[in-house]
């Protein structure tokens, strides 16, 4: 399984939660291939019947980098989007988006294509430009079940220029409280990780998106 190393750094939260910080420019990012979700996984007969699978998944590749400073974990993303959709400007306008997915349990038991199952749920962080840099924390027990938790400790900073989004999502390594069911990151430990990207201009929302078909292993430096 492909590994993504979450490097340990002494940089401050402020420096890191800045998508335009020179630090992110210089780091060696991991390229992740993303592909359109299969129609067979769409719980909606309407989407299955009228959408063209070949047109789903406009974003083909994501650049990812991750660090932690023993307090917080940071994910940096970069992807092409020629026209940013920043908000729901009209009923037929869909904002861009990015999601990071983690299995709560064993990677090999958790279906990335189905966002987990009843027995093996997943946690995801969902960013959209119109969420005002307050990404949502979600729990899913399979397709069509993702639900926002009451609370989310995920923060973000994003910018769009040169026809690309740059985004940092960050969160304390450990979060407790019943209102935010979420995964825990341990320096020296590993966890599965997956990604999804929505290109608003292509009408992508919900399960109509590009995603990484396989789990990667996120390895946190101790």
């Amino acid at each position: 399984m492909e590994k993504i190393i979450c490097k340990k750094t002494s940089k401050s939260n402020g420096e890191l939660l800045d998508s335009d910080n020179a630090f992110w420019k210089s780091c060696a990012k991991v390229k992740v291939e993303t592909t359109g979700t299969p129609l067979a996984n769409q719980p909606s007969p309407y989407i299955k019947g009228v959408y063209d699978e070949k047109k789903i998944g406009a974003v083909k590749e994501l650049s990812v980098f991750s660090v932690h400073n023993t307090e917080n974990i940071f994910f940096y993303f970069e992807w092409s989007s020629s026209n940013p959709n920043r908000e729901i400007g009209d009923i037929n306008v869909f904002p861009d988006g990015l999601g990071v997915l983690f299995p709560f349990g064993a990677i090999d038991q958790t279906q990335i294509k189905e966002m987990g199952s009843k027995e093996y749920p997943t946690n995801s962080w969902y960013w959209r430009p119109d969420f005002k840099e307050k990404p949502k924390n979600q729990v899913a027990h399979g397709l069509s079940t993702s639900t926002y938790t009451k609370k989310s400790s995920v923060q973000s900073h994003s910018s769009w220029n040169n026809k690309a989004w740059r985004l940092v999502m960050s969160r304390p390594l450990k979060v407790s409280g019943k209102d935010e069911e979420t995964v825990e990151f341990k320096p020296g430990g590993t966890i599965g990780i997956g990604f999804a990207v929505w290109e608003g201009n292509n009408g992508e929302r919900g399960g109509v998106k590009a995603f990484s078909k396989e789990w990667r292993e996120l390895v946190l430096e101790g």
Partner: protein
Amino acid sequence: MAGEENTLTAREKELAKGFEAAKDNLRKSDKQVGMVMDLNKCIGCQLCSMACKTLWTNMEGREYMWWNKVNTMPGKGSPKDWEKMGGGYKVKFGGKVMEPIRGKHPTRKEFGDMWTYNWNDVITNKAGEVHLQAKNPDGTTPDWGMNWDEDQATGKYPNSFYFYLPRICNHCAYPACLDACPRNAIYKREEDGAVVIDQDRCKGYRFCLEACPYKVIYFNFIKDVSMKCIFCYPRLEQKVPNACARQCTGRVRWVGFVDDPKSLIYKLVKVWKVALPLHSEYGTQPNVFYIPPLAPPRIGTDGKLDSSKPRIPREYLRFLFGPEVDASLDIMNTELQKVKNGGKSELMEILIAREWTHMFGPYTVDPATLERKPDKKGAYSREDLTSLLENKKI
């Protein structure tokens, strides 16, 4: 998808079965409420629209919504040109295959503007100095509305015509919105078959707005969720009829169970077969039915009544209500004639609706008799109003 059947993996087949079962379950209901609206009686006063507005859509993000509206026909309606936006189904093999048709999202603008008038300027200035003008909140001039075609007739005087078409969600037996929702947030209520959107499950993806061929679903930009007519189910639960029906001054609307042979709705839809669904070819099996308009007779070139052809072209009524409209109008004409000749007609008795409360089936409770705590926010009590009036504050 039929061609792809063989290429599906075992897991994909299993998923497909599960998705289908989930939708079948959401579509199930023990009973089915419905409404019949008599287009011969509707005077386009929009009391129904206002009743609905004040009850359901005067809240945050819902201001532009009209869960109930009355459109002038023939017209583009609201959202503008909704009949050309697609959605619904191609029904095949007697309903065994429901092939969804791709729909288009209406835009916010197509639903209509929300304008105000410069009443104060007109009143406080010298007569003729300031003219009454409509303005949108952003200063632009409105160019579409919920009933923008109001009272615009089609055809040539003296044989021009228009009629009103009140529209709510059709609470379909096979709702395209329910099928479209990937979140399984839309379902038919088991107890009455009303189609509702679970506001906690909805994430505002708007596939329902795309799929509904009647374009009666709205998007709440503030809450990021889809919303629509809920058939006043909280009132039905208290045995109070829908606000639009109870408020109707023209006794246009009947409410009841479509599948109850004792209900007047059943009699109008299934026994007399005069009440018809709108655009049944959309394939969703609506539970709102219309008594088509008979319209006054034409006037010939000699100034006399000309009954050789109808004032409203039959082709147009067939477009709206299907070929069954011919039989419906024939039955009504026959029954009308019977009464004119001094006879009695059960159908005409129902349509006249002498007893207002009989129109609402089991929903006979007067909401004023309910024990409830009214929301005081922004509302006046009778006492408040009296004291304000006495002190000439309003």
